[in-house]
Protein backbone atom coordinates (compact mmCIF):
# COMPACT_ATOMS: atom_id res chain seq x y z
CA UNK A 1 0.00 0.00 0.00
CA UNK A 2 1.13 3.51 -0.79
CA UNK A 3 -0.47 6.90 -0.36
CA UNK A 4 -0.19 9.92 -2.60
CA UNK A 5 0.42 13.48 -1.44
CA UNK A 6 -2.97 14.38 -3.01
CA UNK A 7 -4.76 11.80 -0.85
CA UNK A 8 -3.07 13.20 2.25
CA UNK A 9 -3.87 16.81 1.30
CA UNK A 10 -7.50 15.89 0.67
CA UNK A 11 -7.73 14.45 4.18
CA UNK A 12 -6.02 17.59 5.58
CA UNK A 13 -8.57 19.81 3.76
CA UNK A 14 -11.45 17.72 5.06
CA UNK A 15 -10.05 17.96 8.57
CA UNK A 16 -9.64 14.22 9.12
CA UNK A 17 -5.92 13.66 8.58
CA UNK A 18 -4.27 11.59 11.28
CA UNK A 19 -1.22 13.53 12.51
CA UNK A 20 1.26 12.39 15.14
CA UNK A 21 4.45 13.93 16.51
CA UNK A 22 7.68 12.12 15.70
CA UNK A 23 8.29 11.08 19.31
CA UNK A 24 5.01 9.12 19.28
CA UNK A 25 5.86 7.23 16.11
CA UNK A 26 8.19 4.49 17.45
CA UNK A 27 5.53 3.23 19.89
CA UNK A 28 2.81 3.47 17.24
CA UNK A 29 4.80 1.40 14.76
CA UNK A 30 5.59 -1.14 17.49
CA UNK A 31 1.86 -1.37 18.26
CA UNK A 32 0.33 -1.31 14.77
CA UNK A 33 3.15 -2.75 12.70
CA UNK A 34 4.62 -0.93 9.72
CA UNK A 35 1.64 -1.64 7.43
CA UNK A 36 -0.78 -0.62 10.15
CA UNK A 37 1.10 2.63 10.80
CA UNK A 38 1.13 3.43 7.08
CA UNK A 39 -2.64 2.93 6.98
CA UNK A 40 -3.31 4.90 10.16
CA UNK A 41 -0.88 7.83 10.05
CA UNK A 42 -0.94 10.52 7.36
CA UNK A 43 1.57 13.04 8.68
CA UNK A 44 4.43 12.94 11.21
CA UNK A 45 5.48 16.31 12.57
CA UNK A 46 9.04 16.95 13.75
CA UNK A 47 10.60 19.79 15.70
CA UNK A 48 13.81 21.17 17.07
CA UNK A 49 14.62 24.27 19.10
CA UNK A 50 18.21 25.19 19.66
CA UNK A 51 21.14 27.46 18.91
CA UNK A 52 21.41 28.04 15.17
CA UNK A 53 24.15 30.58 14.53
CA UNK A 54 23.73 30.57 10.77
CA UNK A 55 20.53 32.61 10.79
CA UNK A 56 19.47 36.13 9.90
CA UNK A 57 17.00 38.28 8.01
CA UNK A 58 16.71 40.57 5.01
CA UNK A 59 15.05 43.92 5.65
CA UNK A 60 13.64 46.59 3.41
CA UNK A 61 13.26 49.85 5.32
CA UNK A 62 11.45 51.94 2.66
CA UNK A 63 12.91 55.18 1.29
CA UNK A 64 13.61 58.25 3.40
CA UNK A 65 13.12 61.78 2.11
CA UNK A 66 15.50 62.94 0.75
CA UNK A 67 16.50 59.39 -0.13
CA UNK A 68 19.68 57.65 1.01
CA UNK A 69 21.62 54.77 -0.51
CA UNK A 70 22.64 53.04 2.71
CA UNK A 71 26.24 51.88 2.56
CA UNK A 72 26.67 50.95 6.15
CA UNK A 73 23.69 50.07 8.32
CA UNK A 74 23.32 49.52 12.06
CA UNK A 75 20.29 48.26 13.98
CA UNK A 76 20.58 49.02 17.71
CA UNK A 77 24.30 49.47 17.05
CA UNK A 78 24.64 46.01 15.46
CA UNK A 79 25.98 46.25 11.92
CA UNK A 80 23.91 44.70 9.13
CA UNK A 81 25.28 43.96 5.68
CA UNK A 82 24.44 46.92 3.47
CA UNK A 83 26.18 45.85 0.30
CA UNK A 84 22.86 45.31 -1.48
CA UNK A 85 20.30 47.77 -2.88
CA UNK A 86 19.76 51.22 -1.35
CA UNK A 87 17.45 50.41 1.57
CA UNK A 88 17.95 46.65 1.84
CA UNK A 89 20.17 45.01 4.44
CA UNK A 90 20.88 41.54 5.83
CA UNK A 91 21.34 41.21 9.55
CA UNK A 92 23.24 38.13 10.72
CA UNK A 93 22.32 36.60 14.08
CA UNK A 94 25.87 36.40 15.43
CA UNK A 95 26.97 39.95 14.58
CA UNK A 96 27.77 41.67 17.86
CA UNK A 97 26.95 45.18 18.99
CA UNK A 98 29.60 47.85 18.52
CA UNK A 99 29.07 49.10 22.06
CA UNK A 100 27.79 46.15 24.08
CA UNK A 101 29.95 43.34 22.72
CA UNK A 102 28.56 39.84 23.02
CA UNK A 103 25.84 40.88 25.45
CA UNK A 104 23.77 42.10 22.51
CA UNK A 105 23.85 41.14 18.85
CA UNK A 106 21.94 40.44 15.67
CA UNK A 107 19.87 37.74 17.35
CA UNK A 108 18.79 40.23 20.02
CA UNK A 109 17.67 42.70 17.32
CA UNK A 110 15.59 39.93 15.73
CA UNK A 111 14.05 39.06 19.11
CA UNK A 112 13.37 42.74 19.85
CA UNK A 113 11.61 43.16 16.50
CA UNK A 114 9.54 39.98 16.95
CA UNK A 115 8.63 41.05 20.50
CA UNK A 116 7.23 44.35 19.16
CA UNK A 117 10.01 46.51 20.57
CA UNK A 118 11.45 49.58 18.86
CA UNK A 119 14.82 49.29 17.15
CA UNK A 120 17.04 52.20 16.13
CA UNK A 121 18.17 52.22 12.52
CA UNK A 122 21.29 54.21 11.70
CA UNK A 123 22.78 54.33 8.21
CA UNK A 124 25.46 56.33 6.44
CA UNK A 125 26.29 56.99 2.82
CA UNK A 126 28.68 59.12 0.78
CA UNK A 127 25.74 60.57 -1.18
CA UNK A 128 25.05 60.33 -4.92
CA UNK A 129 23.13 62.42 -7.45
CA UNK A 130 20.08 60.18 -7.12
CA UNK A 131 20.52 59.49 -3.39
CA UNK A 132 21.84 62.77 -1.91
CA UNK A 133 21.35 62.01 1.78
CA UNK A 134 24.40 61.07 3.84
CA UNK A 135 22.95 59.70 7.02
CA UNK A 136 19.71 58.75 8.66
CA UNK A 137 18.70 57.74 12.18
CA UNK A 138 15.19 56.59 13.01
CA UNK A 139 13.28 54.25 15.30
CA UNK A 140 11.36 51.40 13.75
CA UNK A 141 9.08 48.60 14.78
CA UNK A 142 8.63 45.46 12.73
CA UNK A 143 5.38 46.73 11.20
CA UNK A 144 7.20 49.75 9.79
CA UNK A 145 9.36 47.59 7.53
CA UNK A 146 8.19 46.66 4.04
CA UNK A 147 9.76 43.24 4.36
CA UNK A 148 11.51 41.31 7.11
CA UNK A 149 12.34 37.96 5.55
CA UNK A 150 14.26 35.45 7.59
CA UNK A 151 16.73 33.44 5.51
CA UNK A 152 18.85 31.02 7.50
CA UNK A 153 21.71 29.46 5.55
CA UNK A 154 22.14 26.54 7.94
CA UNK A 155 19.48 25.27 10.35
CA UNK A 156 18.15 22.00 11.71
CA UNK A 157 21.35 19.94 11.89
CA UNK A 158 20.40 16.26 11.57
CA UNK A 159 22.36 15.55 14.78
CA UNK A 160 25.33 17.16 16.50
CA UNK A 161 28.43 15.78 18.19
CA UNK A 162 28.48 16.10 21.97
CA UNK A 163 31.27 18.05 23.65
CA UNK A 164 33.58 17.53 26.61
CA UNK A 165 36.91 18.97 27.77
CA UNK A 166 39.92 16.95 28.94
CA UNK A 167 42.09 19.95 29.87
CA UNK A 168 42.57 21.29 33.38
CA UNK A 169 40.71 24.55 32.86
CA UNK A 170 37.10 25.47 32.11
CA UNK A 171 36.43 26.12 28.42
CA UNK A 172 33.71 28.48 27.22
CA UNK A 173 32.65 27.29 23.77
CA UNK A 174 29.72 27.46 21.38
CA UNK A 175 28.78 24.16 23.02
CA UNK A 176 28.49 25.97 26.36
CA UNK A 177 30.57 25.75 29.53
CA UNK A 178 32.80 22.68 29.48
CA UNK A 179 34.20 21.83 32.90
CA UNK A 180 37.83 20.66 33.27
CA UNK A 181 38.80 17.00 33.52
CA UNK A 182 35.85 15.90 31.37
CA UNK A 183 33.62 17.24 34.17
CA UNK A 184 30.52 17.38 31.97
CA UNK A 185 29.19 16.60 28.50
CA UNK A 186 27.17 19.14 26.53
CA UNK A 187 24.98 18.18 23.59
CA UNK A 188 22.49 19.65 21.17
CA UNK A 189 19.61 18.35 19.09
CA UNK A 190 16.17 16.87 19.60
CA UNK A 191 16.99 13.22 18.81
CA UNK A 192 13.79 11.36 17.91
CA UNK A 193 12.05 14.67 17.09
CA UNK A 194 14.84 16.05 14.89
CA UNK A 195 13.47 16.85 11.39
CA UNK A 196 16.35 15.38 9.38
CA UNK A 197 16.80 12.33 11.59
CA UNK A 198 13.25 11.41 10.54
CA UNK A 199 14.06 11.66 6.84
CA UNK A 200 17.79 10.96 6.46
CA UNK A 201 17.34 9.96 2.80
CA UNK A 202 15.69 13.33 2.01
CA UNK A 203 12.73 11.50 0.43
CA UNK A 204 10.22 14.24 1.21
CA UNK A 205 12.49 16.98 2.59
CA UNK A 206 13.63 19.44 -0.06
CA UNK A 207 13.23 22.84 -1.66
CA UNK A 208 9.69 24.20 -1.62
CA UNK A 209 8.46 22.09 1.32
CA UNK A 210 6.37 24.07 3.84
CA UNK A 211 7.72 24.12 7.40
CA UNK A 212 7.37 25.67 10.83
CA UNK A 213 9.96 28.41 11.37
CA UNK A 214 10.02 30.52 14.51
CA UNK A 215 6.27 30.23 14.92
CA UNK A 216 5.49 31.17 11.30
CA UNK A 217 4.81 29.12 8.21
CA UNK A 218 8.05 29.02 6.27
CA UNK A 219 9.70 27.00 3.57
CA UNK A 220 12.76 24.93 2.88
CA UNK A 221 14.97 26.67 0.32
CA UNK A 222 17.24 23.67 -0.22
CA UNK A 223 20.30 22.09 1.31
CA UNK A 224 21.91 24.14 4.04
CA UNK A 225 25.53 25.26 4.07
CA UNK A 226 27.97 22.55 5.21
CA UNK A 227 25.25 19.99 4.38
CA UNK A 228 26.94 16.62 4.91
CA UNK A 229 24.30 13.87 4.94
CA UNK A 230 26.81 11.22 3.83
CA UNK A 231 28.32 11.58 7.30
CA UNK A 232 24.92 11.92 9.00
CA UNK A 233 25.09 15.70 9.31
CA UNK A 234 22.53 17.03 6.84
CA UNK A 235 21.38 20.66 7.16
CA UNK A 236 18.66 22.87 5.69
CA UNK A 237 18.49 26.39 4.35
CA UNK A 238 15.12 27.80 5.38
CA UNK A 239 13.10 30.96 5.00
CA UNK A 240 10.04 32.54 6.60
CA UNK A 241 8.32 35.84 7.28
CA UNK A 242 9.78 37.39 10.44
CA UNK A 243 6.59 39.43 10.84
CA UNK A 244 4.62 36.25 11.54
CA UNK A 245 7.10 34.87 14.10
CA UNK A 246 6.73 34.62 17.86
CA UNK A 247 9.22 35.14 20.69
CA UNK A 248 8.12 31.76 22.03
CA UNK A 249 10.08 30.20 19.17
CA UNK A 250 12.76 32.84 18.51
CA UNK A 251 15.19 33.78 21.27
CA UNK A 252 18.52 35.53 21.35
CA UNK A 253 21.28 34.00 23.42
CA UNK A 254 24.89 34.65 24.43
CA UNK A 255 27.34 31.83 24.80
CA UNK A 256 29.64 33.08 27.54
CA UNK A 257 33.16 33.73 26.27
CA UNK A 258 32.08 32.91 22.73
CA UNK A 259 29.42 35.11 21.24
CA UNK A 260 25.85 35.77 20.22
CA UNK A 261 23.55 33.16 18.72
CA UNK A 262 19.90 32.66 17.89
CA UNK A 263 17.67 29.96 19.31
CA UNK A 264 14.97 29.16 16.80
CA UNK A 265 12.27 26.53 16.41
CA UNK A 266 12.17 24.56 13.15
CA UNK A 267 9.69 21.78 12.33
CA UNK A 268 9.13 19.81 9.15
CA UNK A 269 5.87 17.91 8.47
CA UNK A 270 6.52 14.54 6.88
CA UNK A 271 3.81 12.98 4.69
CA UNK A 272 3.64 9.23 5.34
CA UNK A 273 3.62 7.97 1.75
CA UNK A 274 5.14 4.51 2.02
CA UNK A 275 6.80 1.94 4.26
CA UNK A 276 10.26 3.50 3.90
CA UNK A 277 8.90 6.70 5.40
CA UNK A 278 7.19 4.76 8.20
CA UNK A 279 10.50 3.10 9.05
CA UNK A 280 12.43 6.38 8.90
CA UNK A 281 9.97 8.22 11.15
CA UNK A 282 10.03 5.35 13.69
CA UNK A 283 13.59 6.43 14.59
CA UNK A 284 14.21 6.43 18.34
CA UNK A 285 16.72 8.33 20.49
CA UNK A 286 18.57 5.01 20.87
CA UNK A 287 19.10 4.82 17.09
CA UNK A 288 20.75 8.21 16.70
CA UNK A 289 24.42 8.12 17.57
CA UNK A 290 26.97 10.90 17.90
CA UNK A 291 30.57 11.14 19.07
CA UNK A 292 31.69 12.78 22.28
CA UNK A 293 34.37 15.19 21.09
CA UNK A 294 37.21 16.56 23.21
CA UNK A 295 37.13 20.34 22.76
CA UNK A 296 40.33 20.53 24.81
CA UNK A 297 42.24 19.75 21.61
CA UNK A 298 42.46 22.99 19.64
CA UNK A 299 42.42 21.64 16.09
CA UNK A 300 39.77 20.98 13.47
CA UNK A 301 39.98 17.21 13.84
CA UNK A 302 39.34 16.90 17.53
CA UNK A 303 39.49 13.38 18.96
CA UNK A 304 36.30 11.45 19.68
CA UNK A 305 36.31 9.84 23.11
CA UNK A 306 33.37 7.51 22.45
CA UNK A 307 30.07 7.10 20.67
CA UNK A 308 26.81 7.76 22.50
CA UNK A 309 23.16 7.86 21.47
CA UNK A 310 20.56 10.49 22.28
CA UNK A 311 18.83 8.24 24.83
CA UNK A 312 22.06 8.14 26.84
CA UNK A 313 22.63 11.88 26.44
CA UNK A 314 19.07 12.68 27.54
CA UNK A 315 19.36 10.36 30.57
CA UNK A 316 21.52 13.03 32.24
CA UNK A 317 24.62 10.89 32.56
CA UNK A 318 27.08 9.04 30.34
CA UNK A 319 30.18 7.05 31.13
CA UNK A 320 33.56 8.45 30.10
CA UNK A 321 36.81 6.63 30.96
CA UNK A 322 34.75 4.39 33.26
CA UNK A 323 33.36 7.32 35.28
CA UNK A 324 29.81 8.68 35.21
CA UNK A 325 29.73 12.21 33.77
CA UNK A 326 26.73 14.56 33.87
CA UNK A 327 25.25 15.63 30.56
CA UNK A 328 23.19 18.63 29.66
CA UNK A 329 21.55 19.95 26.58
CA UNK A 330 21.95 23.34 24.92
CA UNK A 331 18.82 22.91 22.85
CA UNK A 332 15.40 22.69 24.51
CA UNK A 333 13.58 19.39 24.11
CA UNK A 334 10.50 20.89 25.71
CA UNK A 335 10.33 23.64 23.05
CA UNK A 336 11.15 21.12 20.31
CA UNK A 337 8.00 19.25 21.35
CA UNK A 338 6.04 22.50 21.35
CA UNK A 339 7.17 23.04 17.75
CA UNK A 340 6.06 19.54 16.70
CA UNK A 341 2.76 19.94 18.56
CA UNK A 342 2.06 23.38 17.04
CA UNK A 343 2.81 22.03 13.57
CA UNK A 344 0.55 19.07 14.23
CA UNK A 345 -2.22 21.52 15.14
CA UNK A 346 -1.78 23.45 11.88
CA UNK A 347 -2.02 20.30 9.76
CA UNK A 348 -4.97 18.87 11.71
CA UNK A 349 -6.86 22.14 11.37
CA UNK A 350 -6.16 22.34 7.66
CA UNK A 351 -4.01 25.48 8.05
CA UNK A 352 -1.07 23.91 6.26
CA UNK A 353 -1.15 21.72 3.17
CA UNK A 354 1.84 19.53 2.44
CA UNK A 355 3.97 19.57 -0.70
CA UNK A 356 6.66 17.38 -2.14
CA UNK A 357 10.04 18.96 -2.89
CA UNK A 358 10.20 20.92 -6.13
CA UNK A 359 13.98 20.80 -5.78
CA UNK A 360 15.36 17.61 -4.21
CA UNK A 361 18.27 17.64 -1.77
CA UNK A 362 21.27 15.38 -2.40
CA UNK A 363 21.34 12.77 0.39
CA UNK A 364 24.89 11.63 -0.44
CA UNK A 365 26.85 14.85 -0.24
CA UNK A 366 29.80 15.24 2.15
CA UNK A 367 31.21 18.59 3.29
CA UNK A 368 34.93 19.11 2.75
CA UNK A 369 37.42 20.97 4.92
CA UNK A 370 38.90 24.22 3.60
CA UNK A 371 41.54 24.01 0.90
CA UNK A 372 44.33 26.15 2.24
CA UNK A 373 46.78 27.49 -0.31
CA UNK A 374 48.88 29.30 2.23
CA UNK A 375 50.21 27.32 5.18
CA UNK A 376 49.61 28.78 8.60
CA UNK A 377 52.92 29.19 10.42
CA UNK A 378 54.06 26.38 12.72
CA UNK A 379 56.19 26.64 15.83
CA UNK A 380 59.17 25.01 14.06
CA UNK A 381 59.16 27.80 11.47
CA UNK A 382 59.95 30.53 13.98
CA UNK A 383 61.37 28.85 17.09
CA UNK A 384 64.91 29.51 18.28
CA UNK A 385 66.93 26.34 17.79
CA UNK A 386 69.90 27.56 19.85
CA UNK A 387 68.75 26.41 23.24
CA UNK A 388 71.02 26.61 26.24
CA UNK A 389 70.53 23.66 28.57
CA UNK A 390 71.79 22.73 31.99
CA UNK A 391 71.59 19.74 34.30
CA UNK A 392 69.50 19.85 37.47
CA UNK A 393 72.51 18.92 39.64
CA UNK A 394 74.66 21.82 38.50
CA UNK A 395 75.25 24.72 40.90
CA UNK A 396 73.26 27.93 40.59
CA UNK A 397 76.35 29.94 39.72
CA UNK A 398 76.83 27.74 36.65
CA UNK A 399 73.31 28.63 35.60
CA UNK A 400 74.09 32.33 36.00
CA UNK A 401 77.20 31.90 33.84
CA UNK A 402 75.24 30.08 31.13
CA UNK A 403 72.52 32.74 31.09
CA UNK A 404 75.12 35.44 30.60
CA UNK A 405 77.11 33.56 27.98
CA UNK A 406 74.03 32.45 26.08
CA UNK A 407 72.48 35.94 26.20
CA UNK A 408 69.17 34.43 27.10
CA UNK A 409 66.67 34.61 29.94
CA UNK A 410 65.68 30.95 29.89
CA UNK A 411 67.65 27.75 30.44
CA UNK A 412 66.05 24.40 29.86
CA UNK A 413 66.93 21.83 32.46
CA UNK A 414 67.46 18.36 30.98
CA UNK A 415 68.29 14.93 32.32
CA UNK A 416 71.16 12.75 31.04
CA UNK A 417 69.09 11.58 28.07
CA UNK A 418 68.33 15.16 27.05
CA UNK A 419 64.72 15.02 28.23
CA UNK A 420 63.12 18.17 29.62
CA UNK A 421 62.76 18.20 33.41
CA UNK A 422 62.41 21.92 34.13
CA UNK A 423 63.08 25.53 33.25
CA UNK A 424 65.21 28.12 35.01
CA UNK A 425 64.96 31.84 34.29
CA UNK A 426 67.14 34.86 34.98
CA UNK A 427 64.58 35.81 37.63
CA UNK A 428 64.89 32.43 39.43
CA UNK A 429 68.69 32.70 39.45
CA UNK A 430 68.80 36.36 40.57
CA UNK A 431 66.37 35.57 43.38
CA UNK A 432 68.53 32.66 44.57
CA UNK A 433 71.65 34.83 44.54
CA UNK A 434 70.08 37.81 46.35
CA UNK A 435 68.40 35.57 48.95
CA UNK A 436 70.81 32.69 49.37
CA UNK A 437 68.87 30.13 51.35
CA UNK A 438 69.04 26.38 51.18
CA UNK A 439 69.00 26.39 47.38
CA UNK A 440 72.31 25.13 46.05
CA UNK A 441 71.72 23.49 42.69
CA UNK A 442 69.51 24.23 39.67
CA UNK A 443 67.06 21.48 40.66
CA UNK A 444 66.23 23.48 43.83
CA UNK A 445 65.07 26.59 42.00
CA UNK A 446 63.76 25.38 38.63
CA UNK A 447 60.11 25.27 37.59
CA UNK A 448 59.19 21.62 37.21
CA UNK A 449 55.70 21.95 35.77
CA UNK A 450 56.65 23.31 32.35
CA UNK A 451 54.19 24.38 29.69
CA UNK A 452 55.56 23.23 26.32
CA UNK A 453 54.81 23.43 22.61
CA UNK A 454 55.38 20.89 19.84
CA UNK A 455 57.27 21.68 16.59
CA UNK A 456 54.22 21.15 14.34
CA UNK A 457 51.82 23.10 16.54
CA UNK A 458 50.23 26.18 15.01
CA UNK A 459 51.86 29.43 16.18
CA UNK A 460 48.42 30.76 17.13
CA UNK A 461 47.96 27.93 19.63
CA UNK A 462 51.44 28.50 21.11
CA UNK A 463 50.80 32.25 21.35
CA UNK A 464 47.56 31.50 23.22
CA UNK A 465 49.56 29.43 25.75
CA UNK A 466 52.07 32.25 26.36
CA UNK A 467 49.20 34.62 26.97
CA UNK A 468 47.00 32.32 29.06
CA UNK A 469 49.76 31.20 31.44
CA UNK A 470 51.44 34.62 31.40
CA UNK A 471 54.86 33.19 30.57
CA UNK A 472 57.62 34.50 28.33
CA UNK A 473 58.90 31.32 26.69
CA UNK A 474 57.82 27.82 25.69
CA UNK A 475 60.30 24.96 25.35
CA UNK A 476 59.50 23.05 22.15
CA UNK A 477 59.68 19.30 22.68
CA UNK A 478 59.35 16.22 20.48
CA UNK A 479 57.28 13.14 21.35
CA UNK A 480 60.15 11.77 23.48
CA UNK A 481 60.17 15.04 25.49
CA UNK A 482 63.56 16.05 24.09
CA UNK A 483 64.02 19.78 23.63
CA UNK A 484 64.09 20.90 19.99
CA UNK A 485 63.95 24.62 20.48
CA UNK A 486 62.47 27.51 22.39
CA UNK A 487 59.65 29.84 21.43
CA UNK A 488 59.58 33.33 22.94
CA UNK A 489 57.55 36.45 22.43
CA UNK A 490 60.51 37.76 20.39
CA UNK A 491 60.14 34.83 17.97
CA UNK A 492 56.47 35.68 17.56
CA UNK A 493 57.57 39.14 16.48
CA UNK A 494 59.28 37.56 13.45
CA UNK A 495 55.81 36.86 12.07
CA UNK A 496 55.23 40.53 11.53
CA UNK A 497 58.38 41.15 9.54
CA UNK A 498 58.92 38.03 7.51
CA UNK A 499 57.36 35.83 4.93
CA UNK A 500 54.17 35.23 6.89
CA UNK A 501 53.19 38.84 6.63
CA UNK A 502 49.97 39.53 4.72
Amino acid at each position, binding site marked *: MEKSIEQINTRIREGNARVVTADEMPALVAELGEQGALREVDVVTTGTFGAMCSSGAFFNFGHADPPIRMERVWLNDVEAYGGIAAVDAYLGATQQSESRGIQYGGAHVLEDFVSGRRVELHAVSRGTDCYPRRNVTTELILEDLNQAIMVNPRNAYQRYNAATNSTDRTLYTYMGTLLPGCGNV*SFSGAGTLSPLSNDPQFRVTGGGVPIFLGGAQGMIVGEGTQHSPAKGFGTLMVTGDLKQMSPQFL*RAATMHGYGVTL*YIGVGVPIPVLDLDIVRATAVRDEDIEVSVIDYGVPSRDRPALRTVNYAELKSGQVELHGEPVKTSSL*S*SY*RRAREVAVALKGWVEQGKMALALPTRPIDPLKAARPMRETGRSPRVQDIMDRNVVSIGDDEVIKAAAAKLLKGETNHLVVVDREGRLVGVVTTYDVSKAIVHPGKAKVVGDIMTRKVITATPDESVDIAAQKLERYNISALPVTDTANRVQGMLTAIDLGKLFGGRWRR
Partner: protein
Amino acid sequence: MKLLVNFSRKRGSEPIIAKAVKETGVLIMVDRAQIDPAGGQMLIDVPRESCRLVSDKMGELGADVRILEHAVTLDMSECVDCGACISVCPREVFTFDAGWRLSMKEDRCVLCGRCVPACPHRALSVLV
Protein backbone atom coordinates in the same frame (compact mmCIF):
# COMPACT_ATOMS: atom_id res chain seq x y z
CA MET B 1 18.39 26.97 55.23
CA LYS B 2 21.40 28.95 54.05
CA LEU B 3 22.89 31.84 55.98
CA LEU B 4 25.50 34.18 54.59
CA VAL B 5 27.85 35.27 57.38
CA ASN B 6 30.25 38.18 57.06
CA PHE B 7 32.65 38.90 59.87
CA SER B 8 35.60 41.14 60.55
CA ARG B 9 38.57 40.44 62.81
CA LYS B 10 38.57 44.11 63.78
CA ARG B 11 35.70 43.40 66.12
CA GLY B 12 37.71 40.79 68.02
CA SER B 13 38.68 37.30 67.07
CA GLU B 14 35.86 35.17 68.41
CA PRO B 15 35.67 31.65 67.02
CA ILE B 16 32.23 32.43 65.64
CA ILE B 17 31.23 29.00 64.31
CA ALA B 18 32.54 27.08 67.31
CA LYS B 19 30.83 29.44 69.76
CA ALA B 20 27.56 29.42 67.86
CA VAL B 21 27.53 25.60 67.76
CA LYS B 22 28.46 25.33 71.43
CA GLU B 23 25.97 27.88 72.70
CA THR B 24 22.99 26.98 70.49
CA GLY B 25 23.61 23.24 70.20
CA VAL B 26 22.78 23.50 66.49
CA LEU B 27 25.07 21.63 64.11
CA ILE B 28 26.30 23.97 61.43
CA MET B 29 27.40 22.82 58.00
CA VAL B 30 29.89 25.14 56.30
CA ASP B 31 29.21 25.07 52.54
CA ARG B 32 31.77 27.64 51.51
CA ALA B 33 34.18 29.91 53.31
CA GLN B 34 36.64 32.55 52.32
CA ILE B 35 38.66 33.78 55.23
CA ASP B 36 41.75 35.95 55.47
CA PRO B 37 43.46 37.69 58.39
CA ALA B 38 41.09 40.67 58.18
CA GLY B 39 37.85 38.74 58.18
CA GLY B 40 35.78 36.60 55.93
CA GLN B 41 32.57 35.39 54.43
CA MET B 42 30.95 32.02 55.00
CA LEU B 43 27.96 30.27 53.57
CA ILE B 44 26.48 27.98 56.21
CA ASP B 45 23.60 25.54 56.21
CA VAL B 46 21.42 25.07 59.30
CA PRO B 47 18.03 23.39 59.89
CA ARG B 48 15.20 25.76 58.99
CA GLU B 49 13.78 25.81 62.54
CA SER B 50 17.14 26.83 64.04
CA CYS B 51 17.84 29.49 61.48
CA ARG B 52 16.74 32.47 63.65
CA LEU B 53 18.54 31.12 66.74
CA VAL B 54 21.87 30.70 64.93
CA SER B 55 21.51 33.99 63.12
CA ASP B 56 20.87 35.88 66.39
CA LYS B 57 23.76 34.18 68.16
CA MET B 58 26.19 35.00 65.36
CA GLY B 59 24.91 38.56 65.38
CA GLU B 60 25.77 38.80 69.09
CA LEU B 61 29.26 37.53 68.28
CA GLY B 62 29.73 40.48 65.94
CA ALA B 63 28.94 38.88 62.58
CA ASP B 64 26.68 40.29 59.94
CA VAL B 65 24.19 37.54 59.04
CA ARG B 66 21.84 37.38 56.08
CA ILE B 67 19.22 34.67 55.71
CA LEU B 68 19.13 33.56 52.08
CA GLU B 69 15.58 32.85 50.99
CA HIS B 70 16.41 32.74 47.30
CA ALA B 71 20.03 31.87 46.75
CA VAL B 72 19.53 31.32 43.03
CA THR B 73 16.77 32.92 40.98
CA LEU B 74 15.37 31.74 37.66
CA ASP B 75 13.74 34.28 35.37
CA MET B 76 10.98 32.19 33.83
CA SER B 77 10.39 34.71 31.05
CA GLU B 78 13.94 34.15 29.77
CA CYS B 79 14.34 30.42 30.46
CA VAL B 80 13.70 28.16 27.47
CA ASP B 81 14.17 24.89 29.39
CA CYS B 82 17.36 23.93 27.57
CA GLY B 83 19.07 22.59 30.66
CA ALA B 84 22.56 23.97 29.98
CA CYS B 85 22.77 24.68 33.74
CA ILE B 86 22.20 21.06 34.75
CA SER B 87 25.65 19.58 34.18
CA VAL B 88 27.69 22.57 35.38
CA CYS B 89 26.03 22.62 38.81
CA PRO B 90 28.05 20.76 41.46
CA ARG B 91 25.03 20.36 43.76
CA GLU B 92 22.30 19.11 41.45
CA VAL B 93 20.12 22.16 41.96
CA PHE B 94 18.61 21.78 38.46
CA THR B 95 16.66 18.86 37.02
CA PHE B 96 14.00 18.26 34.39
CA ASP B 97 10.50 17.30 35.43
CA ALA B 98 8.56 14.63 33.49
CA GLY B 99 7.55 17.24 30.90
CA TRP B 100 11.16 18.42 30.30
CA ARG B 101 10.52 21.63 32.22
CA LEU B 102 13.47 22.89 34.25
CA SER B 103 12.92 22.64 37.97
CA MET B 104 15.10 23.98 40.72
CA LYS B 105 15.90 23.03 44.31
CA GLU B 106 17.29 26.33 45.50
CA ASP B 107 18.03 25.12 49.00
CA ARG B 108 20.79 22.94 47.57
CA CYS B 109 22.57 25.95 46.04
CA VAL B 110 25.97 26.89 47.50
CA LEU B 111 26.24 30.10 45.47
CA CYS B 112 29.19 28.92 43.42
CA GLY B 113 27.82 30.95 40.51
CA ARG B 114 28.88 28.55 37.74
CA CYS B 115 25.37 28.40 36.31
CA VAL B 116 25.14 32.15 35.76
CA PRO B 117 27.47 32.43 32.74
CA ALA B 118 26.53 28.91 31.59
CA CYS B 119 22.95 30.03 30.91
CA PRO B 120 22.75 31.14 27.26
CA HIS B 121 19.60 33.15 28.03
CA ARG B 122 20.82 35.07 31.09
CA ALA B 123 17.94 33.61 33.06
CA LEU B 124 19.88 32.76 36.23
CA SER B 125 21.24 34.98 38.94
CA VAL B 126 22.72 34.17 42.32
CA LEU B 127 22.93 36.33 45.41
CA VAL B 128 26.23 38.02 46.29
